[in-house]
């Protein structure tokens, strides 16, 4: 009996390892996820090393030579001789440096928001799915339904509108704008995760290994944490990656609308917003540089997530012929 138990445990561990190994193998062989992974890696490096990579202080205003005016196009120099690789903005600040620091702020926000949404959503979904049909499931899923009836961007705008833009004092604690946006995104997205997690949990609960663990006397918490959550890691990674794309999009939209980071802090969305006034005089780089940064970051996460999903669900990739 004891030996059987040990054998089952080893098999179980191998099963878990198998799930993750296979996931990794599929990731490497998929061109889409590999491309996405490389783009994401480049962005992560840019974000981490922004202070080293930036040619200038992102808020420093350079002077223009006489006869020229800001924004200066790419490959020009300021009066002090600072070389603008990607041009300057309306205050004579270096666009490349602002884009790098903006990327850093954007990714920091997105990682925080996604991690927190994942954590809360996973718990909600796992608890609901595990207690399928109980009042707990009913209550959690009702909340999820209500939250999902708000379009994410509209919900975020409404909450930020209520809380006010910039720093706010809530119950004596000063809350930064970044943190507020993070919380707003968590409120909008945790329910989505909860839904995904619940359906995955429902699938896993019906698997034999859960029944086996239950027969062996494992507690509910142990089953949820040690058995179910491990097996739901691959689909959750896919959702998390795709959600990174959405979070970057929504935080960029909020900054673009003027609800995100407040000037002069470098923010890609704010740069795009400011650039709107300079489109007609032909200062294309002002808008194109931050726009390309935002789009490439989202693209990287979408490629990665989509490729991972393909490798996770070979059924979708299987050739259907009629």
């Amino acid at each position: 009996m004891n030996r059987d138990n040990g054998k089952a445990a080893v098999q179980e561990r191998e099963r878990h390892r198998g799930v993750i190994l296979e996931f990794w193998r599929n990731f490497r062989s998929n061109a889409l996820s590999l491309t996405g992974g490389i783009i994401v890696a480049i962005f992560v490096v840019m974000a981490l090393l922004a202070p080293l990579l930036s040619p200038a202080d992102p808020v420093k205003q350079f002077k223009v030579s006489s006869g020229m005016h800001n924004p200066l196009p790419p490959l020009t120099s300021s009066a002090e001789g600072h070389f603008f690789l990607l041009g300057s903005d309306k205050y004579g600040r270096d666009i490349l440096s602002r884009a790098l620091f903006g990327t850093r702020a954007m990714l920091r926000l997105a990682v925080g928001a996604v991690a927190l949404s994942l954590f809360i959503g996973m718990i909600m979904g796992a608890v609901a799915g595990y207690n399928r049909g109980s009042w707990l499931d009913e209550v959690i899923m009702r909340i999820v339904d209500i939250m999902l009836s708000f379009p994410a961007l509209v919900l975020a705008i409404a909450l930020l509108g209520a809380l006010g833009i910039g720093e706010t004092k809530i119950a004596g604690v000063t809350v930064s704008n970044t943190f507020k946006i993070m919380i707003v995104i968590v409120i909008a997205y945790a329910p989505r995760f909860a839904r995904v997690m619940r359906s995955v949990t429902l699938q896993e609960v019906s698997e034999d290994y859960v029944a086996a663990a239950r027969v062996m006397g494992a507690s509910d918490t142990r089953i949820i944490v040690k058995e179910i959550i491990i097996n739901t890691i691959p689909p959750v990674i896919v959702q998390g990656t795709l959600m990174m794309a959405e979070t970057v999009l929504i935080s960029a939209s909020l900054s673009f609308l003027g609800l995100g980071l407040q000037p002069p802090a470098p923010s890609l969305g704010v740069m795009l917003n400011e650039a709107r006034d300079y489109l007609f005089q032909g200062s294309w780089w002002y808008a194109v540089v931050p726009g390309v940064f935002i789009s490439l970051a989202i693209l990287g996460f979408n490629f990665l997530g989509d490729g991972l999903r393909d490798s996770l669900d070979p059924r979708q990739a299987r050739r259907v012929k009629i």
Partner: protein
Amino acid sequence: MGTYILKRVLLAIPTLFFASILVFLLVHIAPGDPVRVMLGPVQDPALVEKLQQKLGLDLPLHQQYLIWAGNVIKGDLGISTSVQRGAPVGELISQRYGVTLELALFALLIALLIAVPTGILSALRQNKPSDHISRVFALVGISIPNFFVGILLILLFGVVLLKSWGSGGFVPFSEGVGSNLQRMFLPAIALGTSYSAVVMRMMRSSMLDVMGKDYVRTARAMGVKKSSVVRRDIVRNALIPVVTVIGNSIGYLLGGSVVTEMVFRLPGIGSLVMNAVFRRDFPVIQAVVLIIVAVRIVVNLVVDLLYAKLDPRIQYTSTE
């Protein structure tokens, strides 16, 4: 069928009810006294008191909600405090919803025109180069934020075209259909193309799903021509889930139109709510958010009911 409709309608009501509580509470999660927040830096004591009474802020929270909800049901959405001080919110919205509606419908049309054919072709040529190309294009389309698409369109065409039309701005339908459509064209393309990528992906996976079904194999085995199977069985059945998803993603269109209106400076609901957010005009924020959520819930309901009616299994048993 009758009980299904009843059940769906009954399920939508509590969702709407709780969503309205959330919208109502928006004022109360704001730090500080709502009235002072609403009135901004200029504080007239007489006005403070008047507003406090009007909102019933001295009453318990649930009574305040009932008064507010009662007014909303009667069609009284409150009075704007700062966007257009003293104007009924309902009036502000009725002046502007047309722009947003036109933008959303126009964008939806463009999205469907792009997405349905490419989705179908992509699925029929699954894993061939043209499928890969259209999938990558769709991913790129999803990844470029619609406000950036809008700005790129202005850069590409606007600087030439819009100069002759005057930059951005809006011409009401009544003042000339031609110039109205002219002004709406670029915004609708900006919103529509990014939305089309979403719809195209759904169309493709829905097609693949139907193509794998037994009845398709049976039809082919019975010697029905491929083109007629595609037309009669696959596309028709694949469109059904797409209809549902279009309904479910109406929020994407509404959220997207807020941003698009800001890019092109269109006077719609989106720019109204943004204006209200910057000026902390709570009645306007509440009303717009409530309307958007209500529209979304109702559209979802209608689409769900349509879906039940269009269910392929029901069709199949009745035609065979």
